[in-house]
């Protein structure tokens, strides 16, 4: 058997975008291995409504494992449940999205399955029946191609990278119940505090607007936030310099000691482009740089650059984007 199990992520019963991406990546592997794709959704009873939509994204079967204790992410219970399903189903590969939850869950699964784990994968292939994963290391300064050889392997895919794929129409996606394992909860998520804006995470957003030292002070980040808001689907990012200065939270930092992002559009405002920042965003599809220094290294990687004062350019750009989005 060479079937692949895609682990879907839901919050409050709503499937997260990365779930579809995990299913698409699983489909890629299943096609190469000659197997089918099962998707698993773990949550509280009633989460099935989310599961039903999964068939549309390329899963042949959708397994739903529910338990009263699974309202928030339950690390031990989720891992035990998915590991039991993976073992019982003899899957050749388990695909997880490398989100905050996935980065915690995937190593647990790998340890429990005694399986190798490739983290933060941006491309997948099957060569000679083996899973080959491509993953940026040194924050994207080098690309590693690894071969995983085991009865079951685990791959955690980088959000926003497995977005294209087919199989949606061909697969009906039967929804089945799976056994939840209420493992002794050694770790309990007591509370989930939503951030003030319920903001989109910089690692998952399709558009990222980042600000650097050129913004001159934390109070001017309202301009960055305004531009992000104009796009509607954008997250705010920051350079290490401004995070270290305390202007912005670390959760927004893009770069080698922050997050590595691959959005459709990355706008760097007042960021000179230190090597460790470039490493974190160079896989963006389109990069725009706004900087007053025409020799700033950021312009070397930017598809489009504007030289000048961010305090004049950003408001104008915000206005234009708003107009377009308003139709």
């Amino acid at each position, binding site marked *: 058997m060479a079937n692949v199990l895609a682990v879907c992520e839901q919050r409050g019963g709503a499937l997260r975008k990365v779930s579809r991406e995990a299913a698409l990546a699983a489909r890629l592997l299943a096609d190469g291995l000659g197997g089918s794709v099962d998707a698993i959704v773990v949550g509280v009873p009633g989460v099935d409504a989310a599961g039903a939509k999964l068939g549309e994204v390329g899963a042949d079967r959708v397994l739903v494992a529910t338990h009263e204790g699974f309202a*928030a*992410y339950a690390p031990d219970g989720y891992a035990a449940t998915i590991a039991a399903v993976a073992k019982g189903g003899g899957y050749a590969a388990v695909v997880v999205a*490398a989100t*905050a939850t996935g*980065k*915690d869950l*995937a*190593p*647990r699964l*790998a*340890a429990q399955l005694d*399986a*190798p*784990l490739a*983290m933060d994968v941006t491309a997948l292939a099957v060569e000679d029946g083996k899973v*080959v994963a491509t993953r940026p*290391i*040194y924050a994207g*300064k*080098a*690309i*590693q*191609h*690894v*071969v*995983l*050889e085991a009865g079951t392997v685990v791959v955690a895919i980088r959000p926003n990278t497995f977005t294209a794929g087919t199989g949606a129409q061909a697969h009906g996606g039967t929804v089945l119940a799976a056994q939840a394992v209420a493992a002794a909860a050694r*770790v*309990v*998520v*007591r509370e*989930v505090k*939503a*951030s003030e804006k*319920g*903001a989109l995470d910089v*690692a*998952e957003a399709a*558009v990222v607007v980042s600000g650097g030292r050129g913004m001159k002070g934390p109070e001017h980040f309202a301009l960055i936030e305004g531009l992000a808001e104009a796009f509607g689907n954008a997250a705010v990012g920051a350079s290490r310099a401004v995070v270290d200065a305390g202007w912005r939270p*670390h*959760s927004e*930092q893009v770069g*080698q*000691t922050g997050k590595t992002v691959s959005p459709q*559009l990355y706008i760097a405002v007042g960021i000179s482009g230190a090597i*460790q920042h470039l490493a974190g965003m160079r*896989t963006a599809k389109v*990069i725009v740089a706004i900087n007053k220094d025409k020799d700033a290294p950021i*312009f070397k*990687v*930017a*598809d*489009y650059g*504007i*030289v000048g004062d961010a305090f*004049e*350019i950003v408001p*104008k*750009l915000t206005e234009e*984007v708003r107009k377009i989005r308003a139709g």
Partner: protein
Amino acid sequence: MKIAVCIKRVPDTETRIRIAGAGIDETGVKFILNPYDEFAVEEALQRKEKAGAGEVVVICLGGEVAQETMRTALAMGVDRGVLLKADAIPADGLAVAKALAVELKDGGYDLVLFGKMAVDDYNHQTGVMVGELLGLPVISAIVKLEIEGGKVVAEREIEGGVEVVECALPAVLTCEKGLNSPRYPALKGIMAAKKKPIEIKPAQLGAVALTVKTLTSPPERKEGRIVGEGAGAVAELVRLLQQEAKVL
């Protein structure tokens, strides 16, 4: 409180990476204590200081040369080190986790700390795996930590929020930037570190099921262009984003 901190020697984040075979050319590369491990070392030292007693041990898997990195931790205030000697560090995180678990298993540690990941291989898995292998509670990527009467309350960032997570000691925690501000080793600490013991033993690595086939350079981005200067260039930028790049 007896605390273990697992650390790694990695190339400086500012360093340029030159590819050599399936690895990198280390000539002229400056190596440092993995930045996330600095948060783990700092946290361990603060916990020991707060408790007023205890021991902090760094455990490092790597070559003889990693002792230099371990001395950095010793200079910060760690009591002693254990080097799990391996000629090469496998790319397979589980193989590494197994070697660390062997060392930690009967160490009697109340707390085992890791950086959330190493900035070289980006594996982002070893700490959590070690916890699972030891059957201990694990909380990963913590930005806030309180320990009171054997109970751990930690916070970890998730997309659009923060999870408040609890477990009991002994536990394994992996540290995210923001948890604390690591101290710089003082001269006195650096001198003292030279005399602190580092025990060297062979790493009992697990079987390797993940190997590096090739290492390549990232695709070069094609030469971009300066659209113009000042706010007057915005209209042209917007046109290009809509019509050429098709992202707007």
